C-alpha cells in the first residue's frame, strides 16, 4: 500500500473543507478524486503533501506514505519527501513556474536539491526528462523561460520536474482544466504512459467526470468535504449507487446525445449577417480571416474552437462591441437589441451595486426608456424569468452563487428585449449541475422569446446541448459550419474530427468506440 489516508480533516477558521476522509492508493494505482467546486478535492490534494503547514488551516488525521505518517513528520524530513517521494502537478501551468528562471534551471535545481547530483548532471537530467515528456528540441528549450512555452508545454515541463525525481506518487490537481481539448488529450496520454512505464501511483483531482473516466481505475466522489462514493470508475459512472453521483453523471453534457426536443426550424429571416469579416489586433496576427455567416431569428448558432481560434473576437464583433478591420456586420436593430452574457459572472457585475441596479442598466441608458416603477417592475419580471425571486433585486453580487450570478447576467441581457443574445463561454466557469440548469434556462428563454442566440464555447458537448447549427473555428478561420446533427455525427473537416475524437467523453457515449 503506497498511500493510505485515514480520517483526514482540514478546517479553516469557520469552515470544514475536508471532513473525515479516508482512502487508499495502492502501488502503481490511479485514483480520480472528483467533485464540484467547494467539495474539498483540491484541499485534499494539497493536504497530502502537507502544504497547509504554516497557514491557518488545521489538519487532523493521518496521511501515510509507505507506512510513514506525513502529517506528523518534522518540516525538514517532510521537505525531503516532497517532490522525491510524492510530487504534485498543478492546475494553472501558466503561473506554476517561476517567470524569472529558465525551465531547465527550475527542473535541474529541484533535482539537484534532492539528489545532490552535480550541476552538469542535473542539467542533463533536465534535458532528458523534457525529452521524455515530449518537448521538441529539449536540448535548446531547456534554456527557455516559462513565458516562451505554451500552456501545454509548461504543463509538460512541470510533469518533467516531477518525473526527474521518480516519485512513487504523483498528485495532479486539475492538470488539464486550463488547457484546450487537443492539448488535454496529449497530457492525459502522457500521464498514462508515464504511469505505465514508471509504475508511479497517480492521484488525479478533477471536476470533469469524462476526464476521470479516461485517466483513472478508481474514482472517489466528494461533496461538501466528504466522500460520497468510491469504487472502480466504470461501475461508479455507469451504475452509481448514490443519488448525488447519479445527479452528477446525469448533468454531464453528452457529445452524441441530440439536443432535447429540437423544434423543426421553419425558415426565417436572418437576425444578423456577417459579411467577410476580418480582424487583426495591433501588432498581432490575424484574429479573424474572412468570416461570413448568418444567425437566423429563433435559432441558436454554436461557435466552437480552441483558445486563440478567434471565437470570442467574432462574438464581440457580432455584438457590435468591436468594429472589424474589414468586412461588415448587418444587424437590424439598435445597440441594445444585441446583448451579451460573459464567462465570468463574478467580474461582469459591479461588486458595489445591487443586482437590481445592474440588471436595470440597459433600460436606464435608453433615451426614451421607462422610468420609476416601470423599471423596477421590469427588473422583477426579468429576474423572475431567470428563476430568481424579486428578493434578489437588493442583493449584492458577492451574496450570490456563481449560477445565480449567471442567471442575473441573463436577466440583464433579456431586460432590453433583445433580438440577438450572445453568450461567450457563459457556462464554462460553472459546475456541471449548475451548468445544466443554465443551459436549460437559455434554451427556454430562447424558445419563448424567439431570440437569435450565439453560443460560444470551447466545450463541444455543451454546444451540442443548445445549438441548432454549429460553426467550428481554427486560427481565425471558419473550418466547418453545419447543423448540429450533421456536424457531430458526420463531421466533414479533419479538424472537427480531431476535436470530436479528443474531447473526453463518458463511457458508452461515443458510438464509434469499442
Amino acid at each position: 500500500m503506497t498511500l493510505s489516508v485515514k480520517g483526514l480533516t482540514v478546517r479553516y477558521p469557520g469552515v470544514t473543507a475536508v471532513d473525515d476522509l479516508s482512502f487508499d492508493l495502492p502501488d502503481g494505482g490511479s485514483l480520480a478524486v472528483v467533485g464540484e467546486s467547494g467539495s474539498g478535492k483540491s484541499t485534499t490534494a494539497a493536504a497530502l503533501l502537507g502544504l497547509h503547514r504554516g497557514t491557518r488551516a488545521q489538519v487532523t488525521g493521518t496521511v501515510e506514505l509507505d507506512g510513514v505518517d506525513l502529517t506528523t513528520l518534522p518540516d525538514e524530513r517532510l521537505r525531503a519527501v516532497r517532490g522525491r517521494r510524492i510530487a504534485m502537478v498543478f492546475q494553472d501551468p501558466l503561473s506554476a513556474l517561476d517567470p524569472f528562471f529558465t525551465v531547465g534551471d527550475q527542473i535541474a535545481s529541484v533535482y539537484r536539491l534532492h539528489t545532490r547530483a552535480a550541476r552538469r548532471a542535473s542539467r542533463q537530467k533536465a534535458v532528458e526528462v523534457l525529452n521524455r515528456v515530449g518537448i521538441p528540441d529539449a536540448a535548446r528549450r531547456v534554456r527557455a523561460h516559462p513565458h516562451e512555452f505554451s500552456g501545454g508545454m509548461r504543463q509538460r515541463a512541470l510533469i518533467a520536474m516531477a518525473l526527474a525525481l521518480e516519485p512513487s506518487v504523483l498528485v495532479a490537481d486539475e492538470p488539464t482544466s486550463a488547457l484546450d481539448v487537443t492539448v488535454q488529450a496529449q497530457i492525459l496520454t502522457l500521464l498514462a504512459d508515464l504511469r505505465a512505464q514508471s509504475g508511479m501511483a497517480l492521484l488525479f483531482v478533477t471536476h470533469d467526470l469524462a476526464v476521470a473516466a479516461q485517466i483513472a481505475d478508481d474514482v472517489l466522489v466528494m461533496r461538501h468535504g466528504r466522500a460520497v462514493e468510491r469504487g472502480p470508475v466504470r461501475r461508479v459512472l455507469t451504475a452509481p449507487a448514490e443519488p448525488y453521483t447519479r445527479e452528477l453523471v446525469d448533468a454531464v453534457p453528452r457529445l452524441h446525445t441530440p439536443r432535447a426536443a429540437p423544434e423543426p426550424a421553419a425558415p426565417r429571416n436572418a437576425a444578423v449577417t456577417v459579411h467577410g469579416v476580418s480582424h487583426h489586433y495591433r501588432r498581432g496576427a490575424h484574429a479573424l480571416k474572412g468570416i461570413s455567416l448568418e444567425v437566423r431569428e429563433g435559432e441558436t448558432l454554436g461557435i466552437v474552437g480552441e483558445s486563440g481560434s478567434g471565437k470570442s473576437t467574432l462574438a464581440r464583433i457580432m455584438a457590435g462591441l468591436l468594429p472589424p478591420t474589414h468586412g461588415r456586420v448587418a444587424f437590424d436593430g439598435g445597440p441594445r437589441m444585441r446583448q451579451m452574457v460573459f464567462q465570468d459572472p463574478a467580474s461582469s457585475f459591479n461588486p458595489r451595486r445591487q443586482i437590481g441596479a445592474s440588471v436595470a442598466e440597459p433600460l436606464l441608458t435608453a433615451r426614451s426608456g421607462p422610468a420609476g416603477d416601470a423599471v423596477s417592475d421590469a427588473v422583477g419580471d426579468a429576474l423572475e424569468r431567470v428563476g430568481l425571486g424579486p428578493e434578489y433585486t437588493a442583493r449584492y453580487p458577492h451574496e450570490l452563487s456563481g449560477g445565480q450570478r449567471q442567471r442575473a447576467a441573463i436577466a440583464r441581457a433579456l431586460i432590453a428585449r433583445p433580438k440577438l443574445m450572445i453568450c461567450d463561454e457563459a457556462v464554462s466557469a460553472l459546475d456541471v449541475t449548475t451548468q445544466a440548469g443554465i443551459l436549460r434556462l437559455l434554451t427556454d428563454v430562447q424558445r419563448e422569446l424567439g431570440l437569435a442566440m450565439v453560443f460560444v464555447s470551447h466545450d463541444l458537448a455543451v454546444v451540442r446541448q443548445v445549438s441548432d447549427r454549429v460553426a467550428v473555428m481554427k486560427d481565425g478561420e471558419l473550418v466547418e459550419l453545419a447543423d448540429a446533427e450533421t456536424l457531430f455525427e458526420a463531421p466533414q473537416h479533419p479538424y472537427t474530427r480531431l476535436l470530436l475524437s479528443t474531447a473526453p467523453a463518458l463511457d458508452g457515449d461515443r458510438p464509434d468506440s469499442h
Partner: protein
Amino acid sequence: MTRYLLRRIVETLAVLLLLSACVYAVFYVLPGDPARLICGKICLPDQLTAIHQKLGLDQPLWEQYLHFLQGLVAGRDYSSGPSVNHCPAPCLGYSFQTDQPVTGLLLDRLPVSLSLTLGAAVLWLVIGVGTGLVSGLRPGSLADRALTAVALAGTATPVFVLGLVLLLVFCVYLAWLPFPGYVPLTEDPVAWAQNLLLPWLTLALTTAVVYSRLTRTTLLEILAEDHIRTLRAYGVPERRIIGRHALRGTLTPIITLFGLHVGTVLGSTVLTESLFGLPGLGKLLIDAVNTIDVPVVVGATLLSGFAIVVGNTLADLLYHFADPRVHLT
C-alpha cells in the same frame, strides 16, 4: 535595443523642448520685471531700457526663446557694448543677476546635489527594502507593526523638523559630528561623508517608507503566487524560496520606482539643502525663481527634467535585464 535607445533619446529631447517652452511661457505670464530688480531702488527709465536691451528682454518672447534654442544647439554671442562674449554650445545663457554663465552655475551645484541625492538614495533603499522585507516575511508580527508605525511617523515628520532634531542631537548635545557644510569628495572623502551624513539621513528617513510599503506588499503578493507553492511542493527550503525566488520578483517594481525617484529628488531637495547649508541645485532654483532669473530657472529645470528622464530610461533598461518577460520596443 539600438532602436529602442534611439527612440528614447528622441523622446527625451521632445520632453526637454516642451519643458523649456513651458518655463518660458510661465515666466512671461507672471508679473514682475527682472530688469527692475537689477536696476535697484533709484532707477531711471533710460537705465531700465538699457538693461532690457542687454538682457534681450526688449525682444518678443518667441524671439527670446528661439535665441535660447540657438544657444543651446550652436552657441551664441552676447554683445555688451564693444566687447563680444562667445558662449559655446550648449549655452544656457547668463544669469540676469550675477552675469555668470548658467552652465557654470549648474556645474558648480551639480556635485553637491548628486552627493546628497545618491548618498541618500543608497540609504533609503537599504532602509526601505530592509524593513519592507522584515515586515513582509512576518506580516502582523510585532516587528511588522512597529516598523509600520515608525515608517508612518517618518513620512509624517516634515524634513525641517527631522533635520533640526538630528542636528540638535548629533551636533549639539552629543557633538559627534561637525555642523554640516559641503566638502567635495575629491578633497577629503571622510569629511565629505561626515558632513553629508545628517542630510542623507534626513532625506532617507522621509523617503524610505514608500520603499518599505512597496517591498512589503510585493513580497506578500509573490509569496502567495502559484510558483512559490510549486517550490514548496518540491521540498525547496524556505530560505532558498525567499532568497532566490521571492526576492527577485520583489525587487523588480522597486527598480522602476527608484529610477523615477532619484531623478525627481535630485532637483527638489531644497528644504534639506537650506537646512544644512548645502549649495545644491534646489537652492539655486528657488533663489532664481525669487529674482525672476529666467535663464537660471530654465537651466535648472532642464537639468532636473533631464535627470528624471534619464533615471526612468535606466530603470526601464534594468527592468529588461531583471525580468525576462519584458521586451524593449
